[in-house]
């Protein structure tokens, strides 16, 4: 029987309609109800690997070719009785032919690639050929290329032909040309000049469709070149009276796109009001597009565009009061203009408060109330689109309410509304409601209202099917936690932790730890929580968490006994996590004596218990345990013999780790040689830890920058009260021999055991082999000088030299760091990490590129950083460089980056009159700062002048009557605002002193500039 030649594309359609339900064709495709058909041709029946066929199918024993398939497909049940394929068959021979043709091509990927390569070769030869192609042919081939590209193949030619199409006078050819360019051309292609020329021509066209095509193409590419080329035309198109509405819309968004790549494209002055007034345009489409543009402009320059607020409010009020029939086609499923409403609401979120004018404010509140009221109305349609659009507006309104954070009644209403959504059927709504509530919880007005929903939230943390919703619930619980409900919430979170998804466990652990610490009124509770945490999710408890619990126990005397007892009990569990052993080892080593009175936890019992875990632990933990043992010798002299045996065992080759060997033998010596007094002093109880920001909070912030929901009381960071014990770690170091040079830095973790040594026996300290740098003799750290200069050597020691080059423009900066390896061996695990807290990063955003982990001998690598100053800030980011030499210990070097706020100064020239006018204006208490300090010897006036110039301000001569005095002016550029700043430096030659006066409009800036300059001359 002859098989009719089929059409692959028709066959594909058939396949999608009739077969794709149960079969896949691509290589490696999975078996659905029916087997994957890849490699079907030439295969025997029932042979696709991994698919369970019926016996009938396996027994059939024919081979699939065109003819067998042709027969089979007519009536599968008849051809193979007993097959489980439920398919009536294709009765028309032509259809079967098509399908077979498709199967032949599709079940064979190689054939497809071959086919495409052939086609590509064909097109290439056509383009290269001598015959000039007419427009139609060019269009055809360019279009084919596009199609091939979309199938997932790379296209590397044809760009030129596409550009040619742009200037075609036939619309369809032009259109394809533009499409090809916007899909396939990179922003930095060398054809861009030609493209720009064609676009220019089209922008001049009288046909709005052509103009739009050009605008869309500009918006699609949106490169800097484009922005420069069209910075005149597009604003004109936007506000000109005789531009068609459709063109205006495209022009507005096109301008927005270009503004994003190139913020200086927007003309100021009279343009501002013309652009704002687009909000009043008759045509809703134009308003929609313009609102997006204005939103972006307002973000850049809020003052200049302030006028848009009242217009936006009145526009919004017209929309929310309109019935859905008023706006005709702009009503979307009975919701009047949802997109425009949302955009307007977002626009208003740029100002806080949105307006001072009570009238406008009243109207805005009315609008918000109307939106909240509407949420209560019965839905006008059952369609999900209706509720989505309505709720989209509602959520945006709630965002605005939260943002304003002033109307208590609105906040509470919003909260109640969200509470209803928490039990809504739609997963999406529940997700968003949880997210918005997180923000509500941080407002003082609605915090209480949010707490009412605690039970529902706990329920959704446990019951939601979707992990991302559960995650939101956890975030919300974290945000709504305060002193009153902390115990309950922490308990629930702990309970849930046992079954929680792995992906969110680590974060939950951090959150539980933070909440427990912050709201603990009773520290025994805190200890319980953390130990539970370690028991339940030991793997996810990071170092910081257990460091923290130890810090707190040491700082609070009243829990020490309890902690020792609890941890002792926890250790009795047959299997306990290594982190528990660490905490246990540490706490028992310090406070084991407090529970030794009880015969169940006698010294020997404690020691045996700990030592039973020793063999299961990593070397880090073992080292810690060894330290515990030596402390035991001090606490319980009666078990000294047993412990010395253990030390003896581990001081030889039996422990593979050199650190452990050394530790064991040193401790052994110490316990033999030292008198009880010395031992007691050396192994004295740890002093209190200095107060600091909870390190766990920092970890959480780092993990989720910008996403840590503010916990309501996050600022009154209530951490354990420091004991003002007189002795510090250093005091203990005094007992150690002077040869022990590493000890000064031993407290890096705030945790290392007290260093101990006796008559020339060098004793090493836990921690420094794992963490600290060896003292380097030859260190140059120049960061202070870099307040005045941008380039030079930032740091240098025997191993490493770090150079820096930087440039700044307005609020942007670029830094190149050059790491040079001065040694003869490669530096391994070379990792520079930026130290700049998430909070600070909101003010100065620093991006850092990764570098290769290996720095070859004598080589230099470069690392690029970009910085964007968003708001004024204090200090400067630093960078920690860690690396190993010759596989030795990890070394760490911390270098401050030359990114102090003065780098964003723009020098300002002004005459005496305006200088003094400003100087007087800035006379307020908060605006000025003055410091007097000793000059460096000898007093160097030209040097000081040089430094001030390098500082970034303009040195103004002949203003101050005394020629020795120096005055400067400059503006700090941040994205949020510009801060004008004036400076006066008066030398006193007799006293060899300087008096420095700073005046600026912001107190924080004044202080910071003052700090940067003091003692520098």
């Amino acid at each position, binding site marked *: 029987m002859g098989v009719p030649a089929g059409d692959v*594309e028709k066959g*594909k359609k058939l396949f*999608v309609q009739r077969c794709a339900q149960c079969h896949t064709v*691509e290589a490696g*495709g999975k078996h659905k109800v029916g087997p994957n058909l890849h490699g079907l041709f030439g295969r025997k029946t029932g042979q696709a690997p991994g698919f369970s066929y019926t016996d009938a199918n396996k027994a059939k024993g024919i081979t699939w070719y065109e003819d067998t398939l042709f027969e089979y497909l007519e009536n599968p049940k008849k051809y193979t009785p007993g097959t489980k394929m439920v398919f009536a068959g294709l009765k028309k021979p032509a259809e079967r032919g098509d399908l077979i043709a498709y199967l032949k091509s599709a079940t064979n990927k190689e054939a497809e690639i071959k*086919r495409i390569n052939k*086609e590509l070769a064909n097109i290439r030869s056509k383009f290269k050929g001598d015959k000039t192609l007419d427009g139609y042919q060019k269009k*055809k081939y360019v*279009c*084919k290329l596009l*199609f091939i590209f*979309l199938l*997932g193949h790379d296209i590397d030619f044809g760009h030129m032909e596409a550009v040619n199409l742009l200037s075609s*006078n036939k*619309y*369809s*050819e032009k259109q394809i040309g533009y*499409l090809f360019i916007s899909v396939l051309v*990179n*922003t930095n292609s060398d054809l861009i000049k030609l493209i720009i020329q064609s676009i220019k021509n089209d922008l001049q066209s009288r046909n709005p*469709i052509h103009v*739009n095509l050009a*605008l*869309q193409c500009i*918006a*699609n590419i949106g*490169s800097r070149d484009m922005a420069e080329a069209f910075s005149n035309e597009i604003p004109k198109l936007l506000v000109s009276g005789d531009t068609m509405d*459709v063109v205006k*819309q*495209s022009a507005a*968004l*096109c301008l*927005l796109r270009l503004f*994003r790549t190139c913020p200086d494209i927007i003309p100021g002055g009279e343009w501002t009001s013309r652009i704002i007034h687009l909000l009043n345009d008759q045509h*809703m*489409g134009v308003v929609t*597009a313009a609102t*997006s543009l204005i939103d972006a402009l307002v973000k850049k320059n809020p003052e200049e565009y302030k006028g848009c607020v009242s217009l936006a409010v009145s526009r919004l009020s017209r929309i929310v009061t309109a019935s859905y029939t008023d706006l005709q*086609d*702009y009503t*979307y499923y009975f919701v009047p203009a*949802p*997109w425009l409403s949302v955009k307007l609401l977002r626009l208003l979120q740029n100002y806080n408060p949105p307006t001072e004018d009570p009238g406008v404010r009243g109207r805005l509140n009315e609008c918000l109330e109307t939106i909240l009221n509407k949420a209560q109305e019965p839905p006008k349609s059952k369609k999900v*689109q209706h509720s*989505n*659009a309505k709720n*989209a507006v509602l*959520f*945006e309104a709630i*965002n605005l309410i939260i943002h304003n954070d002033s109307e208590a009644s609105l906040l509470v209403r919003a909260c109640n509304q969200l509470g209803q959504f928490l039990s809504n059927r739609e*997963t*999406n709504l*529940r*997700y*968003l409601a949880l997210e918005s509530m997180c923000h509500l919880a941080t407002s003082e007005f609605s915090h209480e209202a949010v707490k009412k929903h605690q039970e529902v939230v706990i329920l959704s943390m446990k019951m939601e*099917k*979707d992990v*991302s*919703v559960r995650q939101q619930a956890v975030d919300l619980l974290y945000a709504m936690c305060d002193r009153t409900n902390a115990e309950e919430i922490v308990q629930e979170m702990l309970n849930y932790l046992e079954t929680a998804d792995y992906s969110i466990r680590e974060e939950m652990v951090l959150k539980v730890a933070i909440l427990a610490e912050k709201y603990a009124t009773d520290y025994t509770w805190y200890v319980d929580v953390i130990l539970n945490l370690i028991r339940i999710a030991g793997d996810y408890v990071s170092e910081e968490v257990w460091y923290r619990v130890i810090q707190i126990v040491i700082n609070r005397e009243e829990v020490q006994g309890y902690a020792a007892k609890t941890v002792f009990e926890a250790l009795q569990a047959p299997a306990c996590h290594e982190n528990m052993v660490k905490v246990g080892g540490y706490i028992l080593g310090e406070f084991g004596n407090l529970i030794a009175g009880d015969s169940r936890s006698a010294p020997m019992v404690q020691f045996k218990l700990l030592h039973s875990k020793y063999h299961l632990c990593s070397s880090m933990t073992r080292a810690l345990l060894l330290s515990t043992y030596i402390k035991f010798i001090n606490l319980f002299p009666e078990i000294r013999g047993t412990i010395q045996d253990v030390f003896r065992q581990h001081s030889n080759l039996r422990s593979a780790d050199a650190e452990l060997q050394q530790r064991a033998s040193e401790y052994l010596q110490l316990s033999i040689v030292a008198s009880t007094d010395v031992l007691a002093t050396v192994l004295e109880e740890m002093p209190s830890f200095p107060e600091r920001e909870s390190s766990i909070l920092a970890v959480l912030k780092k993990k989720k920058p*910008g996403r840590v929901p503010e916990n309501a009381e996050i600022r009154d960071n209530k951490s354990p009260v420091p004991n003002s014990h007189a002795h510090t770690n250093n005091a203990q170091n005094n007992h150690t021999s002077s040869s022990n040079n590493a000890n000064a830095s031993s407290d890096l973790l705030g945790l290392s055991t007290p260093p101990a040594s006796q008559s020339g026996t060098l004793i090493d300290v836990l921690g420094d082999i794992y963490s600290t740098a060896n003292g380097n003799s030859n260190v140059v750290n120049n960061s202070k000088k870099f307040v005045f200069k941008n380039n030079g050597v930032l740091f240098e020691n025997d191993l490493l030299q770090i150079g820096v080059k930087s440039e700044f423009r307005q609020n942007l900066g670029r830094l190149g760091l050059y790491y040079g390896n001065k040694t003869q061996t490669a530096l391994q695990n070379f990792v520079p990490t930026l130290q700049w807290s998430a909070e600070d990063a909101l003010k100065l955003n620093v991006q850092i590129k990764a570098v290769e982990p290996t720095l070859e001998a004598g080589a230099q690598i470069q690392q690029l950083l970009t910085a964007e100053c968003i708001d004024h800030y204090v200090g400067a980011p630093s960078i920690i460089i860690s690396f190993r030499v010759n596989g030795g210990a990890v070394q760490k070097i911390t270098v401050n980056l030359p990114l102090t706020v003065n780098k964003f100064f723009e020098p300002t020239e002004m005459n005496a009159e305006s200088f003094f006018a400003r100087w007087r204006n800035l006379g307020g208490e908060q605006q000025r700062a003055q410091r007097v300090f000793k000059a460096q010897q000898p007093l160097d006036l030209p040097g000081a002048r040089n430094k001030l110039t390098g500082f970034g301000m303009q040195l103004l001569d002949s203003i101050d009557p005394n020629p020795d005095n120096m005055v400067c002016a400059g503006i700090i550029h941040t994205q949020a605002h510009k801060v004008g700043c004036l400076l006066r430096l008066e030398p006193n030659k007799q006293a060899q002193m300087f008096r420095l006066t700073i005046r600026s409009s912001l107190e924080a800036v004044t202080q910071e500039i003052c700090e940067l300059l003091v003692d520098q001359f």
Partner: protein
Amino acid sequence: MLLFSRQGKLRLQKWYVAHSDKVKKKITRELITTILSRKPKMCSFLEWKDCTIVYKRYASLYFCCAIEQNDNELLTLEVIHRYVELLDKYFGSVCELDIIFNFEKAYFILDELLVGGEIQETSKKNVLKAIAAQDVLQEVSTPDDSYDI
């Protein structure tokens, strides 16, 4: 914006932020695998890197958009829906194949709806009018033809 089929085949891609080809391919691959592994009842939003992904499945096609943290998720879902409606109206009960074989139309419609990643025209009628006007212009200049290979 990305469109891809249940089999993970990319059908249409549109980028409103410049990336190199390599990055684009990587993002696409990651997104497709993440989304395809989600179950139907799960919520249509997910946090991904520093943006939120909004996606929805229509028959065998997934429509997926990446938006910024503080953009409105629900409304993005409706942008997707509006686009689907437009396709549907234009092609008359649209299916995956329509988009494959008339990809240029799908792009043109998208261009009319969104410019530079922002919604330009929310009125269905107006978008269709614009597309119809393009088609008229096209009919005048050349006869219709198909580009299959």
